């Protein structure tokens, strides 16, 4: 963007600079920021930005990164039991990609002045959240396919507009993430199709998984528009481009014909095409369940967080070793040989 670089903006307490002068300077920066957002320019790390914009982005990007990391668990649960070597390779690659997405996103968050350690600490202590969807268990192999199709499908619907998010580093991370996610989604769909067209037992396994993952996937878009605390401001700042309900409707409209092509049904008796609206109508979401899961009472909340904390604690001595080794050898080459 063409905006000013954050230098002296907001430096109160500088001798000889009056409060009114600071306020005027602040207003000038805000005007430049607002104009840049209005013109669809990207805000970059060194640009001035309102503190609330910064905080809102840190919250959203961190939650997104945490979701990638916690989201490894329900799928990793099936790596050792994947039923063919091809499926096993696909699943391993996917879980590896998720760790990579976590890394991009923590880097994007770090451009806003926080650190990965600080964010992980907030995840481990429950001060920052991750997507509610990962608090549901993967009970059969078909759940891996259903997650690919529905959960990744919902994530893509949410994330594609984020490729045009006003904050540059986040938008660029999303471009990379979305490419890989759409690949995973196609593979999930294809895994589910193989089950649906397989034996009777496989078909039943696929249907059962879709029945369990459909509603939680719709909840991934967040609360309805009239209850969404951050939506209006995020849209004004062009962090978000569409409302929760708008994206949820878009997802349903895409998913229904896909379910038909799969030969599977969706567990909603109210689901039907509305000619007048040009959209599918669908039944009411159980928002009490959604709030309950967010509060920590979902089927796997404790398990997911405990496992993450455990991995971090168990790895402490490894990280300490790496730090100690780096410190000992900071003046030498990588193999302990003196640098020329």
């Amino acid at each position: 963007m063409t905006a000013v670089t954050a230098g002296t903006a907001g430096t109160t307490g500088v001798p000889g600079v009056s409060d009114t002068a600071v306020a005027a300077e602040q207003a000038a920066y805000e005007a430049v920021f607002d104009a840049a957002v209005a013109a669809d320019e990207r805000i970059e790390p060194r640009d001035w930005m309102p503190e609330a914009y910064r905080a809102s982005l840190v919250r959203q990007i961190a939650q997104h990164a945490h979701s990638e990391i916690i989201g490894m668990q329900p799928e990793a649960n099936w790596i050792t039991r994947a039923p063919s070597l091809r499926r096993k390779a696909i699943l391993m690659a996917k879980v590896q990609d998720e760790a990579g997405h976590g890394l991009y996103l923590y880097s994007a968050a770090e451009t806003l002045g926080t650190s990965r350690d600080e964010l992980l600490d907030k995840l481990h202590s429950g001060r920052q959240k991750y997507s509610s969807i990962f608090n549901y268990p993967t009970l059969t192999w078909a759940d891996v396919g259903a997650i690919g199709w529905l959960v990744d499908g919902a994530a893509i619907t949410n994330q594609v507009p984020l490729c045009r998010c006003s904050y540059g580093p986040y938008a660029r991370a999303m471009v990379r993430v979305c490419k890989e996610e759409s690949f995973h989604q196609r593979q999930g769909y294809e895994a589910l199709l193989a089950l649906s067209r397989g034996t009777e037992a496989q078909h039943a396994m696929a249907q059962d998984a879709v029945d369990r993952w459909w509603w939680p996937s719709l909840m991934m878009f967040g609360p309805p528009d009239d209850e969404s605390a951050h939506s209006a401001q995020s849209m004004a700042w062009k962090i978000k481009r569409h409302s929760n309900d708008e994206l949820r409707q878009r997802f349903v409209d895409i998913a229904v014909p896909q379910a038909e092509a799969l030969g599977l049904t969706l567990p909603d008796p109210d689901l039907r095409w509305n000619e007048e609206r040009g959209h599918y109508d669908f039944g009411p979401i159980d928002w009490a369940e959604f709030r309950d899961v967010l509060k920590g009472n979902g089927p796997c909340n404790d398990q997911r967080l405990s496992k993450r904390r455990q991995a971090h604690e168990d790895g402490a001595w490894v990280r300490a070793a790496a730090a100690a080794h780096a410190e000992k050898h900071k003046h030498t080459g990588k193999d302990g040989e003196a640098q020329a």
Partner: protein
Amino acid sequence: MSTPDTREATAITAAALALGDDALVLSHRLGEWAGSAPVLEEEVALANIALDLLGQARILLSLVGDEDELAYLREERSFRNVQLVEQPNGDFAHTIARQLYFSTYQHLLYGQLAAGDGPLAGLAAKAVKEVAYHRDHAEQWTLRLGDGTPESHERMHQACEALWRYTGELFQPVEGLDVDHAAMESAWLESVTDVLGRATLTVPSGPRTGAWRAGAGRQGLHTEPFGRMLAEMQHLHRSHPGATW
């Protein structure tokens, strides 16, 4: 009665099965780390190595027959992997020691195979590049853990000792593998001695085989944790006979 040609084909099959099983089983063990690694970068690295090994296993097993039948429908007495790769992950140091011992061996083996003109030369030429990365990864971590903190040094020491008894088997002749096992063994010892020395660790002095005669895994004689690993790996596939996935 088998002709020289079919004897040769059988020998290649035996070699591909042995190397394929090594890669399959170690890949599975590394897959167990997903979601539990000490840092995110290691989630990526361990999965990456597991994927490389799984890729090698799929090519090698496909030379023998149907990869899924071979992976999912054999019982433990029919697996030909060395016992080293089936050892449980233990802590991160055990996983790294297992990687150091195995990838050093695999690097030498694929190097020799790639240099020859045998039926596995093409596969080896591709795999040796992957394995060079695996070896470097294991070496770097051996240095960090061995020459890190007193705790990491002690853990790495324990791990190197505990797995030492499984290393002798790596150099037993394998039918159909046209390599110089004795030369590989001395090169392996030299390389491992060098890395452990730089990591301030001592080379273990215990025996390099267990009570079984050397070559046990290659003959289908495995350690107790292996059966349980296979039970988990094969359960779903075996529950749906004839299904495709």
